[in-house]
Structure formats: C-alpha cells, structure tokens
C-alpha cells in the first residue's frame, strides 16, 4: 500500500442554525475550503466521497446526486455513505483505500448535516427522525433515539461503577475547551452541578450530557505521497486505519461479541485494534499526543477511553478524575471542545475530527494548541444505531 497524507482541511465554524445556507451550500463551502487549503482546484481531483448521517434529515432524498450537482462533479465518480455518526468514517476509510491502492492520487471527502432543516416544529422533530434509524420492528415503536444510548450509559455505569459526576466532568471539560476555540458553538464555563441539575432527557442522560445540534459540514483532501510532497511542506500522514461494524439491535450485541457486556462498545475496540497494529501503537496513552473522539454523550467519551485502551476496563472515570485528558494532560481529548462544546458535524464528524487533529499536528490550533507540538494524533468516529459503526485513524506529522 502507498502512503497517504491529508493535504487539505475545511474551516470548522460551527453554528446551531444556518439560515443563510442550504444543505448543499454547506457541502459546497466545506469542499471548496478543503480543496483551496490543499492549493488545488476541483479539476485536479477525480474521486469524491460524500457522507451524511441519515437521508431523513434532509427534505431531498438521493442526496449524493445533488451533492455531485452542487460540486459540479460531472463525468467523475461520487460515492455516498449513510450510517449516522459512522457515515464519515466509512467514507474516509474508502477514500483512504482509493489512494493507498494507487487507484488515484487525490480524493475529496466531504460530509455533514443541516439539522436545523429537520427540527420542525422544534428539536423534537429531529429526535423523531433519529428514532427511525433504530430497528424498525423492535425499537422504533418505543420512539426514543436517546433510549438506546441511555441503556448503554446505564449499563456502563452500573457494571463499572462510573458515576454521573464523572460523566459530567466530560461536559465541563469540553464546554470549557470550547472557550479557547473561536469556531466553537457552545463555549461556556459550567460546573459538575450544572450538568447534574440540567433537564433529564433519558435518565441517566441529561441535557448537558448531550452533544450539540449543529448545521455544519467538514471536508478533507487526501493525496498520494508524491502529490503530498509537491503540495505542502507539512503533509500529515495517515499511519493507521481501522473500521468495524456490529449488529444494530442493541439487545443482540452481547451474543454477537462473546466476552463483552452491554456496558461496552466492542466495535470501537475492533477498529482501534486494526489501526494500532497498522501504526505500531502499543501504548496509546503515551504514544498518542492528541485525540478527537465521538463525544455524543458524556459517558461515551469515558467509554471510548477504555475501548481505545487509553486506560483499562472500567477506568474511564478515573482517567477524567486525574485530568489526563484535559489540555495539558497526558493525552488531551477533544481539545477544541468536540461534539459537546465545539460542534456536531454528525454525518461529517470524521472529517471534522480529522481536520481538528490535522490543525493540532500542523501547530495551527491557536488558543487550544496542545503543547509541546504533537507528533501523533488519533481520530475516532462512532455511530450507526446506538453505536454499531466505528472508525479509528492514526495521523502523524513529518
């Protein structure tokens, strides 16, 4: 396989509502930013990979066709991926392989969502659309997109003794990190008590345990080694890739993954294992300098620490208690604020997170730059129906 580098990233401005742009405009803007950041034009790139969380979130089905139209992608291939938060990881993974295999030397990966279009008459409308992504016969009738995640959070808490206070610390950290990030949607100084006292949505999940709802797209450009070296002095190399799926029905997960329990996410562990093996990562906590992970809910970030082996099983709460994942800690996680403080690109979260890690590795993260300048970064995406699709990337500078 050939080496592959990230040579272009989009801006990461996040907003709750963008009435000034359509879904397709947001995709166009992100794609243009990433292509320009790579010092390329759209004519230079043949392959485009597009991801969005769920076609239900937009009034226009067969979105890939209209994304190709918005980007002027005529007589060239554009592939569409949808599986909630897992979509972007799938798109990135496929795009990586198109370059690594030598099929092409430049690819554009773009994705995201415009959730505000889907939240009529209010946020509840969007929640209804999320539910449709659950198992249609055995889960949708109960009508709760949060419910599956809440069951997982309760399982994780009760099996490992993780507390609501420890989860709340993730929200405090990520909203706090967002204060340092001018692109962030929800910068604020909050306390553990604020999180605990926020409105209960699906106990144990409370309002401030949740990630944001955003209108945001993100894009990246990958290049072969030869092209990357022509284009930039600071290409960021992709050293490891891992991708995994699991069954959608939450109740089936234990029997499909012998030895695991309902308070775990084996899909992340599988993705990390492949990415670590490829990149030669044996001690993630100390070898990785910065990580962007899917913090859809506070518990999820703690569980991700465990599934990615930043700590041992059941030690996610201890890791946040020790401050290891704060900016300045052993392994800063979501230094720009993540989905909880910065913005939730949903169907484009992988590109969003990858762009954030690239900024860190280039030393361009400004107020939330991790010091000393990081050399190795991790990107993790997670999604599908209640965590059944995950992708892990290891990136390296120089």
């Amino acid at each position, binding site marked *: 396989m050939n080496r592959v580098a990230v040579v272009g990233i989009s801006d990461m401005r996040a907003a709750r509502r963008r009435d000034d742009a359509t879904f397709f405009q947001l995709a166009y803007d992100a794609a243009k930013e990433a292509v320009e950041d790579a010092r390329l034009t759209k004519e230079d790139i043949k392959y485009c990979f597009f991801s969005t969380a769920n076609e239900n979130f937009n009034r226009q089905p067969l979105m890939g066709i209209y994304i190709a139209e918005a980007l002027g992608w005529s007589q060239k291939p554009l592939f569409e991926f949808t599986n909630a938060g897992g979509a972007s990881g799938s798109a990135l993974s496929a795009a990586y392989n198109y370059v690594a295999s030598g099929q092409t030397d430049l690819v554009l990966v773009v994705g995201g969502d415009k959730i505000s279009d889907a939240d009529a008459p209010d946020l509840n409308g969007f929640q209804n659309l999320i539910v449709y992504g659950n198992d*249609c016969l055995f889960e949708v*009738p109960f009508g709760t997109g949060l419910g599956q995640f809440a069951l997982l959070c309760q399982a994780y808490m009760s099996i490992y003794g993780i507390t609501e206070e420890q989860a709340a610390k993730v929200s405090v950290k990520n909203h706090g990190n967002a204060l340092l990030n001018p692109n962030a949607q929800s910068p604020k100084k909050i306390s553990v008590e604020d999180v605990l006292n926020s409105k209960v949505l699906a106990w144990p999940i409370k309002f401030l345990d949740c990630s944001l709802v955003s209108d945001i797209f993100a894009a990246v450009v990958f290049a072969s080694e030869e092209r990357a070296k022509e284009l930039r002095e600071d290409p960021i190399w992709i050293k490891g890739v891992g991708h995994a799926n699991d069954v959608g029905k939450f109740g089936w997960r*234990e029997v499909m993954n012998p030895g695991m329990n309902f308070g775990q996410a084996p899909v992340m562990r599988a993705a990390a294992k492949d990415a670590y093996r490829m990149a030669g990562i044996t001690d993630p906590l100390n070898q990785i300098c910065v990580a962007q992970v899917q913090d859809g809910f506070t518990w999820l970030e703690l569980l991700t620490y465990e599934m990615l082996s930043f700590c041992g099983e059941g030690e996610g709460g201890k890791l946040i208690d020790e401050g290891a994942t704060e900016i300045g800690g052993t392994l800063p996680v979501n230094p720009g604020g993540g989905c909880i403080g910065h913005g939730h690109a949903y169907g484009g979260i992988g590109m969003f997170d990858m762009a954030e890690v690239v900024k860190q590795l280039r030393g361009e993260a400004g107020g939330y730059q991790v010091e000393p300048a990081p050399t190795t970064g991790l990107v993790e995406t997670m999604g599908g129906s209640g965590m059944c699709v995950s992708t892990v990337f290891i990136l390296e500078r120089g």
Partner: protein
Amino acid sequence: MEIQSDVFKAYYKMEAEYNYSYGRISKFFRELMENRRIMGSKCRKCGVVFCPPTSDCPKCWTPTEWIEVGQEGTLLHYTIIHMPALWVEREIPHTLGLIRLDGADTGLMHYVDETDKTKLRNGLRVKAVFAEERKGYITDIEHFEVVTSMRKAR
C-alpha cells in the same frame, strides 16, 4: 462568501405509508397477536436463542427453529425516558428496559411499568402484560411489570 440578510425558510411535511413484510419471522408476530405467546428463534448450529427473533442466525449463517420463550424474564438495564417521539402515547416519564426473557440469550427492548428510580435495579424479575387489542406489533405486549414475591407465589 457574503452572508445574505434576506434569507427565507418554509415548512414542509413528508409522509409515507408502507405494507411491510415480516417474512420468515411472521410467526413471532402472529403468536404474539393471536395466542399471547412469545417466540424465540434458536440457531440449529450454535444454539443461541434470539428474542427479538431472526430466521437465520447472523453468527453461523444457519437457519433457526422456533421455540417458545418465557413470559417472564430479567431486567438487564433500563432508562427513564422524559422525551419520547411524537407517536408514543405512553405517559412520561416512562421506563424502557432491556429484558432477557427466560430461555432467550439476547435482550429485548420494552417498557417496564415502574418509574421510581429507587425501585429499579439491574436483575429485577419482570413479566409481560399483553395489550387487550393486539395488531401484530411488538407493542402487542403493553409493557413488562415488576414481579413481586407475592405475585410470584400466586
């Protein structure tokens, strides 16, 4: 790009109707609706009993056979829902549980008729309560009620 100040938005509603085939898991819904029985599907190779059922074991790619599972089971995990979707008529808050029915190996998502957090715990015994009017959906089971020792003796 210049941000326009004269932006405009409009309401739109999309509706769809389906006639959805239950295929080879039809028996599960028929038994639920007609006979108040809960069926699981057992893999002929690995022996795992799925409930929710499947016609073919996704682990072994082997056909399953029907077996009746218990109307009682164990509450594995739970959440108390304060924000359900629009089509849910059940009063809020309500509890959603992951239930392993006796004889099954997987968890079934369903309502549990107890919302007091102090009375809920992993491992509670629960029992299916059927809806009077049944139409061939998983909600033909109205909810699961917590089995008290008195009821158990009865």
